[in-house]
């Protein structure tokens, strides 16, 4: 019955049709068309050219570099996200609101600034950076710097996904486990983690997708050397600036595939989560 009520004859049909048309036209122009355009342009010179562009050595190196960065960023932020969400949702303590607000901070900061602050902190000219440099550890303009900048930008993702879910679940399950004799760790691994598996998965996927696609922050921190320190987005920029538009789109298509995969995972997770909720409520 809910469905029937939500679509009752409220606005006259012509209004509904007009609004739907306008909304869809907007959607197609702004959101769908770029998607289609990337795919089309990347194949503009044929599938062979696409394959060639994608298998170039500097593309391969960009893929490697991107994956390296992601391999560091995701575990770090997942660990932080889980611990922070756990602290915030299962306990009461002073300053909880401040902590929650601070977690959201990287969202509000321009990626360029996000990259810059690490240069300010660890660049060659700084005391800390200078010390590291003298010991042969390159941070800025090298992979560690990119990892740090990307971690900053994707910092909130896992926590923000987990907090609402864990808040809604409360502490009852954990208390029950404890009353049955489980230790803190056991209660965490056997009760808390399984309860949040879908939100956790989704948070990790979002974090990974954003980390793969981060551009502004790594642009500041990277040395922009094609074939060495370029991630995939930086490579796209390099190709575009070098007027090799088709190759730029070819490499972009890899990232688009990644984005579509993320959306598919999101849809899948939401569906599973709704099933899990429905089953548990019954």
């Amino acid at each position, binding site marked *: 019955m809910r469905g029937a009520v939500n*679509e009752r004859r409220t606005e006259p049909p012509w209004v509904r049709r007009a609004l739907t048309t306008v909304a869809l036209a*907007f959607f197609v122009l702004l*959101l*769908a068309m770029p998607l289609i355009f990337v795919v089309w342009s990347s194949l503009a010179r044929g599938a062979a050219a696409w394959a060639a562009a994608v298998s170039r050595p500097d593309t391969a190196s960009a893929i490697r570099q991107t994956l390296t960065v992601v391999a560091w960023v995701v575990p770090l932020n997942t660990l932080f996200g889980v611990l922070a969400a756990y*602290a915030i949702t299962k306990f009461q303590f002073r300053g909880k609101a401040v902590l929650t607000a601070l977690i959201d901070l990287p969202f509000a*900061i321009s990626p360029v600034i996000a990259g810059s602050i690490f240069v300010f902190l660890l660049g060659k000219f700084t005391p800390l950076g200078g010390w590291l440099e003298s010991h042969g550890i390159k941070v800025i303009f090298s992979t560690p710097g990119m990892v740090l900048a990307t971690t900053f930008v994707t910092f909130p993702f896992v926590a923000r996904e987990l907090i609402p879910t864990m808040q809604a679940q409360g502490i009852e399950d954990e*208390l029950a486990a404890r009353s049955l004799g489980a*230790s*803190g760790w056991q209660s965490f691994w056997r009760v808390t983690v399984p309860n949040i598996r879908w939100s956790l998965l989704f948070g990790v996927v979002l974090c990974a997708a954003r980390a793969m696609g981060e551009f502004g922050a790594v642009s500041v921190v990277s040395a922009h050397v094609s074939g060495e320190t370029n991630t995939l987005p930086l490579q796209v920029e390099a190709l575009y600036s070098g007027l090799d*538009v088709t190759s730029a789109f070819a490499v972009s298509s890899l990232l688009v595939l990644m984005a579509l995969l993320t959306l598919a995972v999101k849809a899948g997770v939401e569906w599973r989560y709704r099933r899990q909720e429905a089953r548990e409520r019954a």
Partner: protein
Amino acid sequence: MRPEVTTAVQPLAVKKQRRRVLGGLGLSLGYSVSWLSLLVLLPLSMVFVTMAGLPLDGIWKVVASRQVLSAVRLSFWTAAASGVVSTVSGALLAWVLVRYRFPLKRLVDALVDLPFALPTAVAGVTLSVLAGPSGWIGKPLAAAGVALVNAPAGIIVAMVFIGVPFVVRTLQPVLQDLEPETEDAAESLGAGRVQVIRRILLPATGPALVTGFTLAFSRALGEYGSVVFMTGNLPFRTEIAPVIIKAKMDNGAYAGAATVAAMMLLAAFLLLVALSGLQNWQRRRTE
């Protein structure tokens, strides 16, 4: 006398007991706070430390430079304009998705998240080619005398691209939770459709609209990758603040870059406080 003592001690003991029962607060909180401090707070503070590397009049020269001021102004007004466009179009899209039926609705709903998931560089390159002189959208527009690339309009379009999903996702749950009976009630009391929208629906979704605008606005303000390819970065015309910061960083003018960054951070912070105040005022009215 004795019972009084026990009751005074009881609540405190219970509270401590609760924390101990669940266990892990020390570890999780400690780790979170240290990580947060090291990764977020410490680097951010370096903005002001680095800025302090310049003498006061040096700072003033940067702040008051025409180029910087024009870039900051451009950033703010395009972000605000795009925020408004995002809010209106996002609200329309959310309304249609929640209330109406049409083919492929599920697909459209899923694709709304595309700008979230798509790397900003890809979005930027794609939008700039699409809107460029030879693109699918740029060509007909050029014939009509409208240029998107290398113009503020293009910047706004790119910002709307990344802002719309925020508005749609913020509004959808609110629209879904609206009790249909409230509209029935208004109708049975004699309100026409427009009156129902004005007096019932808008107030109910007001807070969500403000939140959506805030999210879209702050995201657009700092956006780099999606926008930088659209603009051509012509100083005084289409140069946005993040581009200036990047340029200064590339040139090694770290203190100058830090100054502009500080300006952006401060202005964004003030605006967020104002918007959050607006939201609180709204919330208090409905409770």
